[in-house]
C-alpha cells in the first residue's frame, strides 16, 4: 500500500452574499459581491505511508476544512492537493447516513458510494452488522439511533470499501470505550500496512494514541508541523 497526501499552497475560500449566506463563485459573480474569507490558505505539507497525523487547533481553525479537502469533498480554490489511495472518511456524526433508511440500507447505499458494487456490499452486510454490534437495531431506521450508534455504523460503513487513507473528525470522540478500542486497533493496523490516518479533535490523549505527528492550524494557516507532543505544547502555549 502506498498511501500519501501532498498539499502545496492549499487554499479554500468561502464567499458570502449580502445576507451572509455562503455562495458559490458562480453565484457570487451573478449577485452583487458580499464578503469572502479563507478557510485555509497557503497550507503545504506531505504525509507518507504509515503516518498518523493529528490536526490540532481551536474551533474554526480549519481542521474540518482540511479534512474535507483531503476527502475530495471541498475542491481547492488555490494551490493543489494530491491524495494517493482510497479514502474512507468519518467527518460528522451523520457520516452520510440517511435518517429514513435502516442501518442495512444505509450500508448498502454508502458502500456503493464508497466504490463497491451492490453485489459486493450485499455480500459484506452481515460482516458490517457484526462489526457495528448493532444487532437487531441494524434493521431499524437510523433516525432512531443514538449518536454513538450512528458513529459505529458510520465507521463500519466508511471502512467497508477498504481504506488506504482514513479521515476522522472528532466523531470518534462520540464512540463508547469499547468501540473506540476497535477504531484504535483498526488505525494501528492500517498504519502498519502503510496506510495514512489523519484525525482532528480535542481529545489529545486519544489523538496521541493514534498519531505520532501533529499539525497545528490557526485561522486557516499552518502554524506548526512536528511531533504530536511538540505541536500540542505549542497549541496550548498560544
Amino acid at each position, binding site marked *: 500500500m502506498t498511501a500519501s497526501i501532498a498539499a502545496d499552497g492549499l*487554499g479554500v475560500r468561502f464567499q458570502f452574499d449580502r445576507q451572509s449566506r455562503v455562495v458559490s463563485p458562480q*453565484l457570487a459573480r451573478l449577485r452583487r459581491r458580499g464578503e469572502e474569507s479563507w478557510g485555509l490558505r497557503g497550507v503545504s505539507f506531505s504525509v507518507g505511508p504509515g503516518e498518523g497525523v493529528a490536526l490540532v487547533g481551536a474551533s474554526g481553525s480549519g481542521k474540518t476544512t482540511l479534512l474535507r479537502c483531503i476527502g475530495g*469533498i*471541498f475542491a481547492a480554490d488555490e494551490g493543489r492537493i494530491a491524495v494517493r489511495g482510497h479514502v474512507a472518511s468519518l467527518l460528522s456524526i451523520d457520516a452520510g*447516513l440517511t435518517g429514513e*433508511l435502516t442501518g442495512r440500507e444505509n450500508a*448498502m447505499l454508502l458502500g*456503493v458510494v464508497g466504490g463497491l458494487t451492490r453485489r459486493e456490499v450485499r455480500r459484506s452486510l452481515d460482516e458490517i452488522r457484526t462489526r457495528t454490534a448493532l444487532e437487531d437495531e441494524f434493521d431499524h431506521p437510523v433516525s432512531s439511533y443514538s449518536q454513538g450508534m450512528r458513529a459505529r455504523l458510520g465507521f463500519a460503513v466508511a471502512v467497508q470499501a477498504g481504506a488506504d487513507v482514513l479521515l476522522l473528525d472528532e466523531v470518534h470522540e462520540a464512540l463508547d470505550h469499547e468501540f473506540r478500542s476497535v477504531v484504535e486497533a483498526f488505525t494501528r493496523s492500517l498504519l502498519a500496512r502503510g496506510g495514512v490516518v489523519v484525525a482532528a479533535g480535542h481529545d489529545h490523549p486519544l489523538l496521541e494514541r493514534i498519531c505520532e505527528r501533529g499539525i497545528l492550524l490557526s485561522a486557516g494557516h499552518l502554524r506548526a508541523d512536528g511531533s504530536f507532543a511538540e505541536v500540542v505544547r505549542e497549541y496550548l502555549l498560544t
Partner: protein
Amino acid sequence: MAEPAASSGRDGGDRGALPAAVARNVELLAALVASDLRARYGRGRFRMLKWLLDPFALVGVYLLLVTFVLDRPGRAPGVSLACAVIPFQLVMMAVMNGMNSVNLRRSIVLNTPLPRLMIPLSGALTETVAFAASLSLLALMVAVYDVPLTAAVLWLPVVLAVNVLLAIAVAYLASLVGLWFRELRPFMISFVRALFFLAPGLVPLSTIGGRAYDLIRLNPLTGLFEAYRAVVVEGHRPAAWELLYPTAVALLLLAVLLPVYRREARHFAKVV
C-alpha cells in the same frame, strides 16, 4: 477577480477507464434510486400498492372527476386530458425533486466525494419509477372510454423516452435554481404549472386557432402532450416535430446546464 489556480489530484486507479466508470455510475444510480424509493414507499408488503395508488392520489381524482362528473365534448376527453396531465406530472415532480435534491443529499455531500452529477439524474429517475405507476391510470382511462389501441402504441416507448429526457433536463435546471435562488422555489413551481396551461393541456392543439396556435407550439410540453394523444387517442404515429422539438429543447438545456452544474458542484459542500 480571476479564479486562483487550483487543482485536486486523486488516484482513482483503474477506475478511470471509461467502461468501468460507466458501470460504476450505473451502480451508483441504482443504489441512489433504490434508497429514494425505499424512503418514499417504505419496505413493507404494501409498498407496491402504495406505488400503484400514489398517482391516483396525485392526479387520479381530477381525471375521474372529468370522466364521470363533468360532461366534456370531444373524443375521449378523459384520455386526452390524461395524455397531458400524466406526462406533465413527471416533469413537475422532476422539478420539485430537483430543487431539493442537493439539500436532500446534504449528509452524503458533506461526507463523501459522491459524483455530484448523479444527484439530479437520480432524482429524475426516481420520479420516472414513480411515474411508471401512472401508466396504469392511463390504461384505466383508455379502458373506461373504450379507446381502440392501434399499432401506433408501439411509439409509446419513444414518447416516454422523450418525456424522461425532458424531465432529466429540467431536473438539472431545478437543482441550480434550488441552490441559487432558494427564495424563488415557489415561483419556479408556479412557473412550471403555468407552462401546463400555456400548452394544450386541457384541450387538444387541434382545437386552438390563430396566433395562439403558433405560440403554444413553442412550449416543449405541447409536442409531448400531442405525441401522447397521437399514439393513445388518435391511433397514429406522432408528427416528427412533436418528438424532435421537446428532445431538442432538452438537449439544449443539458448542453448549457451541465457545464454550469459541473462547476457549481465543486462547491456544493460549502453551500448546502
